């Protein structure tokens, strides 16, 4: 075991940790910038960019950039263009699948893109370059639209779709945005317009940044229209009364603000799910266990999840008395991750909290013996974090 191995001195460790952190930071920045880059595109970029990002950890104003950095920025922009084209393709697929996904995609495209007014000259230049990539994507979209149209029932709609696809491909930003919003609506509501919707969605997804932003707004509107229509016929979950009970009990005791969110998780066998305010978590946990009507005396599972912008600890409780399940989530920041330990309430949390600390680096103040459990004590970093870079002293 590691005990017998030569242990690195504290200085070495600190240096190594700092290095790992720097790498991780660079990686995180990279990720943030290209949040929308698809899986196929990312390895290419990842291999190009780490050094560049590491050398310029803070985003420099363009005037300060060296020629090399500018070149790098252009390169990055070009890669982004490819990514956008890819995203567009995904958006089309998503539109085929179902409306909600399509909306997500369009939102994502919108968030990743900058308004034109904010672009630096370099970025604009890069955008021009990107146009080349986009042209390729457009051609593909036109072809896809044609194929989609060919599947259509009559020749009238066929010609219509072709014309629309061609028009859409050439369309300026605003027009494309409108088409997109419409596509989003149609994909959800009207199946007969499916082929049209596909063509439009494909074209629209390639729209310029500003257009995408507009589309987002419209898509959001569309969602707003759709949601009530979708949910109205659906019967409330059989667990809804339980959720209401938990919410009312907890808010009575601690006030409404301790519950950040409460919902029935449809994907997880309709388990009532609460998100509890981090600062008050320990009090609420005690209440969950001790309250007569709740009495969640059994902690089934405890683990953490890294969502890149935050960390979350997930608890699954069970009450043998009431025969009821409850899922609880507590959020914490990635930089100073702290979630109160519940080891004093459920002893079963002991090793699970240690495991979460070991693999995700979430600290549990109040835990009596918080140290690594699966990995050696001198391990550097937290492997289940998304920006984890392996540090190996042997290499």
């Amino acid at each position, binding site marked *: 075991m590691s005990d017998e191995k030569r242990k690195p001195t504290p200085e070495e460790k600190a240096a190594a940790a700092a290095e790992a952190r720097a790498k991780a930071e660079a990686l995180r920045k990279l990720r943030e910038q290209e949040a929308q880059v698809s899986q196929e595109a990312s390895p290419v970029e990842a291999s190009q960019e780490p050094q560049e990002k590491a050398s310029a950890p803070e985003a420099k104003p363009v005037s300060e950039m060296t020629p090399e950095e500018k070149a790098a920025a252009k390169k990055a922009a070009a890669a982004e263009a490819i990514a956008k084209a890819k995203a567009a393709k995904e958006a089309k697929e998503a539109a085929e699948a179902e409306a909600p996904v399509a909306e*997500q995609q369009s939102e994502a495209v919108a968030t990743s893109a900058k308004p034109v007014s904010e672009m630096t000259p370099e970025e604009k230049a890069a955008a021009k370059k990107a146009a080349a990539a986009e042209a390729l994507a457009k051609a593909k979209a036109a072809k896809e639209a044609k194929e989609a149209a060919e599947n259509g029932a009559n020749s009238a709609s066929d010609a219509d779709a072709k014309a629309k696809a061609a028009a859409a491909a050439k369309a300026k930003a605003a027009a494309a945005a409108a088409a997109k919003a419409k596509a989003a609506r149609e994909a959800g509501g009207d199946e007969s317009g499916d082929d049209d919707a596909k063509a439009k969605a494909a074209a629209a997804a390639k729209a310029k940044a500003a257009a995408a932003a507009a589309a987002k707004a419209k898509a959001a509107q569309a969602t707003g229209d759709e949601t009530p229509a979708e949910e109205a016929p659906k019967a409330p979950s059989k667990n809804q009364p339980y959720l209401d009970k938990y919410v009312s009990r907890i808010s009575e005791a601690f006030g409404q603000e301790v519950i950040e969110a409460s919902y029935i998780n449809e*994907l997880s066998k309709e388990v009532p799910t609460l998100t509890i305010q981090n600062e008050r978590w320990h009090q609420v946990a005690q209440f969950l266990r001790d309250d007569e009507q709740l009495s969640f005396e059994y*902690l*089934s*599972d405890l683990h953490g999840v890294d969502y890149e912008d935050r960390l979350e600890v997930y608890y*699954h409780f069970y009450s043998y008395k009431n025969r009821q399940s409850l*899922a609880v989530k507590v959020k914490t920041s990635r930089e100073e991750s702290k979630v109160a330990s519940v080891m004093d309430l459920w002893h079963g949390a002991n090793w699970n909290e240690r495991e979460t600390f070991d693999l995700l680096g979430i600290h549990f103040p109040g835990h*009596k013996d918080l140290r690594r*459990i699966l990995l050696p004590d001198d391990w550097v970093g937290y*492997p289940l974090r998304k920006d984890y870079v392996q540090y190996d002293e042997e290499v």
Partner: protein
Amino acid sequence: MNHNILTTHVDTSSETGLRTEEMLLNVGPQHPSTHGVFRLVVKIDGETIKEAIPVMGYLHRGTEKLAENLTYTQIIPYTDRMDYVSAMTNNYVLCHAVETMMGLEIPERAQFLRLIAMELNRVASHLVWWGTYLLDIGAMGPFLYAFRDRETILDLFNELCGARMTFNYMRVGGVKWDAPPGWIDKAKEFVQYMKKELNNYHQLVTGNEIFINRLRGIGKFDTKTALDYSLSGVMLRSTGVKWDLRKDEPYCIYDRFEFDVPTATEGDCMARYHLRMAEIEQSLRILEQALEQFPSEGEVMGKVPRVIRPPAGEAYVRIESPRGEIGCYIASQGKDKPWRLKFRRPSFTNLQILPKLLQGENLANMVAILGSIDIVLGEVDC
């Protein structure tokens, strides 16, 4: 807890004038009674255990990290290697989690095959436990009987999916292979054989006086402690909680069959022994019914999208493995690979109570207590 395990206490003021000294004993990682690579540092005073500190992670392969870069179908073989004594339930829990998220319908025949495979595996798993547990506490013979009969089950699995232990049998939406011709009859034959054989097991071991004295009243805890320590499976049922996920949160098609959930109130090693033996009996009962009702034809794979992409969101499901409650948590972002995959492993959770049970216990009982928890290290370390 004491961080520096290397400090021991020397008592020089003993009444007898004898100089007694605490001693550190390192059990494992390579020790047969740990059933894998598990290390236990025990601080002993004479033969009394003062403190026991489990050290684990020797078999940690980072399954959860690896899974983030694998498609759901690719993860299934990794689950085989967690609890390798009962891989079918591991296969199932992952598939079940994905199917729950996607709302998939599983064909009837596939459901039966899954259930039969899981129950056969439960019998096999308990047989391994029975054999090795008795080996731990000094009886060589039973091990040979147990492994002989377990081999029959492994042969059945071999015919079913081409592997004896790492099955990789289930898929999201069904199972990979249909039962070969005559397989069901062979399984029926085995069930009848095993029912009779179980009596021999009892005759061989259960009434043995030495055996009873080694187990009765050892490693005792009550319901409150069991719940506090998140224990599940036999560990929980031995304290009187009638709780079996097959019965209480039915999954697969368990709600169609008649079976009992054996419980005991003593909460000691003997109770756990009896429960596992009774569970073999109940599993055979389920198998008997399932094999009888097995549909003569039908699909073994449901309609599943070519690329498995659970909708964005998260799900946690739990089922009853031979060791207790095995859970699977998936956080999905709508991609073909999980954003985060987490297994709630019963061996890991149940093992937590070990230091508490060992404190103040005679060293000779250590193996009996550890064995009665029934851990598999592949699952503890994941």
